């Protein structure tokens, strides 16, 4: 029984979207239930995704603008084409947090994706399940600004403490905004 | 989180330090005698692993990616036509090319109808990846075997056209020119045209977004590549 069916009958209605692409399986789950689902995936006897490979943050703002731009341009050219139902609903959540999981016993990989909208950048931290999630979560916070509730010490990881922006967001210019590190003697203890 | 306590058990010979130390001494002495005999040989290159740098130099690979040079063809005409493909292919964006028409008198000096009026490479930014050499349709720019690139001032590190041509002359004089590059066999059999360039040319012309570093002449070049891209 393929991985897809196993995951489906384990999680069932929680799965918002399943994508099978180039042999990788990605499931999308609601943000609020991420810890519960990851715990289920970790302990389920058939699946046992007990190895957290990585946590990836993605900022989809540029992707949506491009889609919007594409939708406007063809609409302008071929008026005759049947009009797609353009739903103007609330803009899709801007950020994505993707957990890469690996089942050591069966060598199968799974990606669990949650969408985080810009107005409440709060996600439950999964350092409870894996202590290895400590730094990746700090890095996602450092690069995207997504806060992780329950994280032991949520501080910037790669940037210095006083860094004003979140560099991996799409609106942050490539050359940076010229922040200079003012060398305060950062106390650690 | 109790750390697993590791029990150490040693054989008697390991327990007393001296036996293993003597074995180690024997080994280093073997090296010492070998190198001592070697170092008494004549000539700068004595110990096999040591190159006495200024006197005797290590042989450099013919495909070594060192300092750039603008090549001339057999009749001494410049191959570069100033198309700027190398500037666009460069990950470090350190090449700036300005295209121009050859003046009336020196048509013979240039292989193509147009030539590069100004060609500068910022050696401080260059990462020597060799993509410019791959991207050049005319095989005009090549990375030579020159690796002594130290300069006294920062702006001496910006190689202008004369410096690159001089590099070529120097390499030609020393006979260190590269052998012509064999085309890479591609799966699916048909050998792409152009013996000189690699079958896969990473031309990264991105019509839509105007490139920040593109100078004005490159703009019309974009139109030319625009039309070219339509037919492929």
């Amino acid at each position, binding site marked *: 029984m393929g991985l897809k069916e196993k995951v489906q009958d384990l999680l069932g209605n929680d799965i918002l979207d399943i994508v099978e692409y180039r042999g990788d399986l990605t499931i999308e789950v609601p943000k609020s239930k991420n810890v519960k689902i990851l715990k289920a995936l970790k302990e389920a006897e058939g699946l046992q995704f007990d190895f957290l490979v990585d946590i990836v943050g993605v900022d989809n703002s540029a992707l949506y603008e491009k889609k919007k731009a594409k939708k406007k341009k063809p609409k302008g050219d071929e008026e005759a084409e049947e009009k797609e139902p353009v739903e103007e609903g609330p803009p899709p959540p801007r950020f994505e947090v993707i957990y890469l999981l690996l089942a050591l016993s069966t060598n199968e990989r799974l990606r669990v994706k949650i969408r985080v909208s810009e107005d409440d950048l709060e996600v439950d931290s999964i350092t409870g399940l894996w202590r290895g999630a400590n730094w990746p979560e700090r890095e996602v916070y450092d690069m995207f600004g997504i806060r992780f509730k329950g994280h032991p010490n949520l501080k910037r990881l790669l940037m210095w403490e006083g860094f004003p922006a979140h560099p991996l967001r799409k609106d942050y210019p490539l050359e940076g905004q010229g922040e200079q590190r003012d060398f305060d003697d950062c106390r650690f203890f | 989180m109790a750390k697993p306590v590791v029990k150490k058990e040693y054989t008697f010979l390991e327990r007393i330090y001296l036996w293993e*130390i003597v074995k*180690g*001494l024997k080994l*280093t002495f073997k*090296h*010492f005698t070998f*190198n001592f005999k070697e170092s008494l040989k004549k000539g700068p290159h*004595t110990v096999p692993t*040591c190159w006495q740098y200024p006197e005797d130099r290590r042989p450099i690979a013919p495909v070594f990616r060192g300092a750039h040079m603008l090549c001339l063809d057999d009749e001494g005409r410049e191959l570069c036509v100033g198309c700027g493909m190398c500037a666009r292919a460069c990950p470090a964006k350190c090449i700036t090319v300005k295209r121009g028409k050859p003046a009336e008198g020196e048509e013979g000096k240039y292989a193509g109808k147009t030539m590069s009026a100004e060609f500068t490479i910022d050696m401080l930014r260059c990462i020597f990846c060799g993509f410019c050499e791959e991207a050049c349709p005319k095989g005009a720019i090549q990375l030579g075997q020159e690796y002594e690139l130290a300069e006294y001032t920062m702006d001496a590190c910006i190689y202008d056209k004369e410096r690159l041509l001089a590099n070529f002359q120097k390499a030609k004089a020393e006979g260190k020119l590269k052998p012509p590059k064999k085309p890479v066999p591609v799966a699916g059999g048909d050998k792409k045209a152009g013996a000189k360039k690699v079958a896969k040319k990473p031309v990264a012309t991105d019509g839509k977004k105007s490139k920040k570093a593109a100078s004005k002449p490159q703009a019309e070049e974009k139109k030319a590549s625009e039309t070219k891209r339509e037919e492929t």
Partner: protein
Amino acid sequence: MDNWVIALIKVVFIWTWTLLIATLMTWVERRGSAMMQDRLGPNRAGPFGLFQPLADGIKLFTKEDIIPEKAHKILFSLGPILFALPAFSAYAVIPFGDKLIVNGKEIILQVADVNVGFLYVVALGAMAVYGIVLGGWGSNNKYSILGGLRSTAQLISYEVPFGLSLLAVVLVYGTFSLREISLVQQGTFLGFLPNWGIFKQPLGFILFIVTAYAEANRVPFDLPEAESEIVAGYHTEYGSMRLGLYLFGEYVNMYTLAALMVTLYFGAWHLPYIDMSKFLGPVSYGIASFLVFFLKTAFFLWLFVWVRWTVPRFRYDQVMGLGWKALIPLALVNLFITALCIQLTV
């Protein structure tokens, strides 16, 4: 030529000789380690790089002498002096040859034939600790103070087995004066063995050589200046000639300990079965004894270099463990056996 002129000549000779050997030692160390590591070592300054120590000396002299701003000025400058001084002066009691008869006057090739030469050397060995500790504390740097702490613990705790193994030698020869010890080591012992100290004190010699490495801060005991752990240990903040004094003192210390090893255990200037004084003239015998003594010392100096590039470094608590739990009991056992043997044989 009355006595004080001869003494002055001897002192000047020994002083320059020790300096020369110490500088030569830096060259031997760099070339020797290079050869052992499939390299070539310095060969640009002079033939085979022989002027390299000279170049290092000039470099150290001409470098700017920086005293860190928060360092304790007096202790900072006193450190290297207190480290190099005992190393140089310990050589006064070591006989570097037999005697030289020059136009009827007999000159003993030893600066000062003190009858408690032994204790003098052991005492000066302990003085070197002050140099390291003051240097480490004075330079107001965390790594230096760590280096200083490590060296005090190591040197003091290795002073005990060092002294005990020397005591066993004193038991065998019955005298403290180094000259008499070296004179006695003539002839054969138990028939076929040369009458050297090592055959009387095999375990004593092993203890002595291990503690000598600890005294000289040489690998595997170079904890006080372990580059990879505490940057450069006690001489992290030191610059030009102050650093030179520290490094110089270390090499002179090594030379003194090597000379001591030869005097006590390897029959100072005696060849195994040949009595040189019979068939050599008075002057040539003196020089020959000096050369033999020097060649033996050179071997032990080479041994210092040889071991340094073969063996990894101890950890701090292992050095202590080895010192107290292994070497001191062994030294006591050695002392006991020696006493027993003397009691039985006498």
